[in-house]
Structure formats: structure tokens, C-alpha cells
């Protein structure tokens, strides 16, 4: 079922990139949120997709069962999920101020000294 995950990753990236490039604040933020979903899925898939073998050792066992999923990408993605939340919040607040100052949701009107 790698194909299903790859399909999901591809669609999420394509949609989020298009949103990012649309040039309005709301779509930019939406695209950012989607982008982190896509990235997490991609990173997760890079660990290999194993069904029914969580990286947990059973009570009394010395290690997870043979063929269990790779725990390292999971640990990476876990912190990435939480950080993505904080970054999204930061971007939202940043956009809040920029939008308020420029009184428009056109991001080309923000910040730039030539814009």
C-alpha cells in the first residue's frame, strides 16, 4: 500500500504548494498547515511502512517482535508534529500583524520596501 501513502503525499504537497503560491494570506497559512501534514507523512513513510508491528516490546520481552516498525522516524515525526503546531501558531500571529498593518490579504503588499 505504499502507493496509497505516496498518492496522499503527492496530493497534499501539490495542493499546499498551490495554496502557498496563490498570494493571499489565508491561503498561505492554509498551505503551511497542509505542508506540515505532507512532510510528516513523507518522513514517516521513509521509515518503511509496516502494518501491525508497533515498536513496543511486550511485557517480559527484551525487544519488539522481529519485523516491527522502525521507531526512529516515529520519534522524529512525533516532535515534528508538536513543533509544526507551534510554528503554525507563530505564522498565524505574524500574518495577523502583517494583515492588520497592510489592511489587505495580498501578501505582495507586506513588508517589502518596494512592494
Amino acid at each position, binding site marked *: 500500500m505504499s502507493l496509497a501513502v505516496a498518492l496522499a503525499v503527492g496530493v497534499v504537497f501539490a495542493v499546499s504548494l498551490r495554496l502557498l503560491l496563490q498570494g493571499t494570506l489565508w491561503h498561505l497559512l492554509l498551505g503551511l498547515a497542509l505542508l506540515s501534514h505532507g512532510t510528516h507523512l513523507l518522513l514517516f513513510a521513509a521509515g518503511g511502512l509496516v502494518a501491525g508491528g508497533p515498536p513496543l516490546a511486550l511485557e517480559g520481552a527484551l525487544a519488539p517482535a522481529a519485523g516491527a516498525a522502525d521507531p526512529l522516524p516515529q520519534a522524529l515525526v*512525533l*516532535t515534528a508534529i*508538536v513543533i509544526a503546531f*507551534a510554528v503554525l*501558531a507563530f505564522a498565524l*500571529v505574524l500574518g495577523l500583524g502583517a494583515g492588520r498593518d497592510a489592511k489587505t490579504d495580498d501578501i505582495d503588499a507586506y513588508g517589502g520596501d518596494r512592494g
Partner: protein
Amino acid sequence: MTTLIVRTATRYLMPLLLLFSLFLLWRGHHEPGGGFVGGLVAATAFVLLAIADGTSAARRLLRIAPVRLVPVGLATSLVAGLGAFVLGRPFLTGLWPEAGIALGTPLLFDVGVYLTVVGVVLTILFALMEEGS
């Protein structure tokens, strides 16, 4: 959003969620859970309360300003790591009083993660809620 149903539900849900978050934190070393999830669940409990009764009620219950929780949590994790350092082992090496007991420095480290996550999430969401009012 503050309907009677939400308020009533929160009254029962909130303590359950907090208990559940501690449970997640405690068992995280062996079963799914841990400081990150636990902290997020605890933060959700307080967010729920803030939605139902307002942020001032949630802040009262929390007692400590959420932004203060951030350095407290970070310091807790740091202290958990320093123990090994003081004993001449590499920084953040896990230490257990007795092999097999869950109360080692990694648990303390996870407590620090838990507190930091609660602090960060509540700092952000409370500030934005108060921004609206």
C-alpha cells in the same frame, strides 16, 4: 460556543482528561504515551475549560502563568540530564535508582517535556483567546 452543554460536559471531562494525561505520561515509557501526548491532553483540558468558563477561570485553576511553565519544564529536563553529568557520565545519560524501576531520570525528563508542552500550548492559545475579547 459556551452553551450549557459545553459547560456541564467540561465539568466532568476536565478532571478525566487531566487524569488521563498523567496516566499517559506515566505509562509512556512502556506503552504508547509520554510527555508530549500527555502535555497536549492536559493542555486540551485547560483549553476546554477556557472555552467553557473563560480564560480567567482556566488561569485560576492552573495557578501558575502558563508562560512560567516553559522555563520550569525546561529546567526540569535539564536537571534530569545534569544528574549524570555530575556523576561524570555523559550529559543526559539515564540513571535509575534500581534497574527496572520506572522512577529514573528519563521519567523526570519526560515530566519536563510534559510541563513545557502544557506551558507552550496554553501560552499561545490563552494569549490568542484574550486577544479576541
